[in-house]
């Protein structure tokens, strides 16, 4: 399965630290254009801050709009980063080596993008720290709120969960990064960069004790981060599942449904990132078609389980045969603006990508995987949109209060801001630290064995 060619250590070091030593030709132009998009988004946000939430498309009764959809979408993307790297580390799969750090960095920046969405969504963002369980004493600029947050509200669980997730991702990425910082410290010429890298590397020398810690610590941390990942998206789904007044929200399958959706959209995000890295940094020797093949098979399984959860949610929404629920589902399927979105969502979320992934040639071709996974993420953004907004338009008995929602320019600008922010963040990270861990690839070279049975060569690996 693996057509593999042995590389020397210096060759690996050369290839993987090249982007860190000097920036690639395209680097500043790409980061510049992304920076421009971010500027446009931020100016929209300042306009919203100045004149109030009226500028967004939010109205009564659709009080949540594109920002919350974007928040759930980015939390979804962030999950697969940790899930892919944690599960691959726990099962010690051989093809984990090139993609674990890329996935974790994607997690890091999409989490920050998700948190920034909460800042856009809230009516008084300068008071947002009241949600966190900080003590209600006088903190510098603001009068003491005099009360603790309400622990029974899902919006207090959210910052606790996402904060835990963000902090543990940062610590996780840093512990696994120390050997590579030591490598860059040795590679880079003397100067301010060398001082910073040697401070960050904490004097890592590569003794057997330090390598054994680098072996066991990630496994221990992934075993701890996996439950965090499961709980964060369950809590995000409880933001919607606990409310009884909105049709289509109050169903118990929301926690697993959101998590499978997060894995589906997140793993596709990781595949898009991998294909992007492969194309941008010319890493053909490290990211092989087999990696795409293996992830493609995993995606087919995850997509079918997600579709089963979607089917369950729809069946049990119609099961009690209550009028508001049927009116909502009818609206989603037959009323013009929502029915087009629904069809696009079904096609891009499940049928086109999974249909394509059944063929081995598609799975092994990075370009095809790049486009199918982008389709998946478009579909998943629409899925969250179709969960939040049609439900809120309240097809209930009080028929005078039915509402609709169209995103305004400010919202579109800020959604674009988050996408640009994440891509730019990953590229800047790749510029400062090596995105594919060189020591992992070198370890792969040393552990590599070939078992020759008659004419067939089978790749083997050392298991401790």
């Amino acid at each position: 399965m693996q057509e593999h060619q042995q590389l020397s250590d210096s060759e690996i070091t050369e290839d993987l630290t090249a982007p860190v030593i000097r920036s690639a030709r395209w680097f500043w132009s790409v980061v510049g254009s992304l920076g421009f998009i971010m500027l446009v988004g931020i100016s929209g946000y300042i306009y919203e801050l100045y004149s109030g939430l009226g500028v967004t498309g939010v109205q009564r009764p659709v009080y949540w709009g594109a920002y919350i959809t974007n928040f759930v979408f980015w939390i979804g993307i962030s999950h697969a980063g940790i899930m892919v790297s944690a599960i691959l580390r726990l099962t010690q799969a051989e093809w984990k080596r090139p993609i674990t750090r890329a996935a974790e960095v994607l997690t890091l920046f999409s989490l920050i993008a998700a948190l920034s969405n909460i800042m856009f969504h809230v009516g008084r963002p300068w008071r947002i720290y009241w949600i966190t369980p900080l003590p209600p004493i006088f903190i510098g600029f603001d009068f003491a709120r005099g009360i603790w947050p309400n622990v029974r509200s899902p919006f207090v669980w959210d910052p606790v969960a996402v904060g835990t997730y963000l902090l543990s991702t940062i610590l996780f990425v840093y512990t696994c990064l120390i050997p590579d910082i030591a490598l860059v410290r040795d590679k880079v010429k003397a100067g301010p960069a060398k001082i910073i890298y040697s401070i960050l590397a904490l004097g890592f020398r590569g003794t057997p004790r330090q390598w054994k810690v680098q072996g066991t610590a990630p496994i221990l941390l992934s075993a701890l981060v996996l439950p965090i990942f499961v709980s964060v998206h369950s809590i995000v789904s409880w933001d919607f599942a606990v409310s009884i007044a909105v049709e289509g929200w109050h169903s118990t399958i929301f926690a697993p449904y959101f998590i499978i959706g997060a894995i589906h959209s997140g793993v596709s995000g990781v595949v898009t990132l991998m294909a992007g890295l492969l194309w941008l940094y010319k890493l053909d020797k490290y990211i092989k078609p087999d990696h795409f093949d293996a992830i493609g098979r995993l995606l087919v399984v995850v997509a079918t389980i997600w579709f089963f959860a979607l089917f369950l949610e729809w069946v049990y929404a119609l099961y009690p045969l209550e009028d508001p629920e049927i009116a909502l589902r009818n609206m989603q399927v037959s009323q013009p603006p929502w029915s087009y979105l629904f069809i696009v969502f079904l096609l891009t979320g499940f049928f086109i990508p999974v249909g394509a992934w059944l063929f081995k040639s598609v799975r092994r071709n990075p370009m095809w995987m790049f486009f199918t996974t982008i389709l998946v993420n478009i579909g998943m953004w629409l899925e969250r949109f179709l969960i939040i907004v049609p439900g809120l338009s309240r097809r209930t008995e009080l028929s005078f209060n039915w509402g609709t929602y169209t995103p305004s320019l400010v919202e579109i600008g800020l959604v674009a801001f988050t996408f640009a922010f994440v891509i730019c963040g990953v590229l800047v990270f790749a510029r400062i630290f090596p995105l594919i861990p060189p020591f992992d690839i070198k370890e792969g070279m040393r552990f590599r064995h070939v078992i020759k049975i008659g004419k067939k060569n089978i790749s083997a690996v050392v298991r401790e």
Partner: protein
Amino acid sequence: MKQSKWGMVVDLDKCNGCQACVVACQSENNIPLQKKSDYDENRVIQWIRVERYWEGSFPDVKAKFIPIMCQHCDEAPCEPVCPVFASYHNNEGLNVQVYNRCIGTRFCANNCPYQVRFFNFWEAEWPDSLKNQLNPDVTVRSRGIMEKCTFCVQKIRRTKRDAKVNGFEVEDGAREINPACVNSCNTEALIFGDMNNPESKISRIKAKEGKKDGRGYHLMEHYGTSPNVLYLKKIDNSKKTKSH
């Protein structure tokens, strides 16, 4: 002083949909002026709104006006979801909305089946001429804050305080304790009172009409929020049924 539990009765038979209560409420509680654009963008702030429903086909069409305000439910779904305790249930049975704690997450508005919570999208501004008519007892809400009907809690507080200071008993149905909408209703369709006090008008109505075959019903009972506002059906002599 016995603990009081405020509630309201809306007699749909008497309500003729004249919107007097809506105007009274807006002037009493410093509700911002609503421009035409607010109505188009569906962002109007009406703590009490009168909904019109038509029944029957053309020859014998019947109009039905239902004034809907915050029901101050005992098990309000909007209270536990607020992260900053901006909305909670106080000991007088009212669903209280604390404006300076609210940060505008709008979670409570999603959770209210009666949709009686409103959000300040824009900063409210009044022409100078109207500034002195603002009610000093009620905070003027800035933008980004949720607000709703509070049964004119400022009137209840002031009357209870005066009663305690001057030592007289607050008698049921007094004009100074009734909310603005109840005082302004010319056909006395809205009745407000203390449900813990058995002699009060509201508890006598509740006792008489609240039973199985009485005219009383609660709005959207199947949500299980046990609201404190009792609606009395319209009496219709033409039809065989007593009320609809």
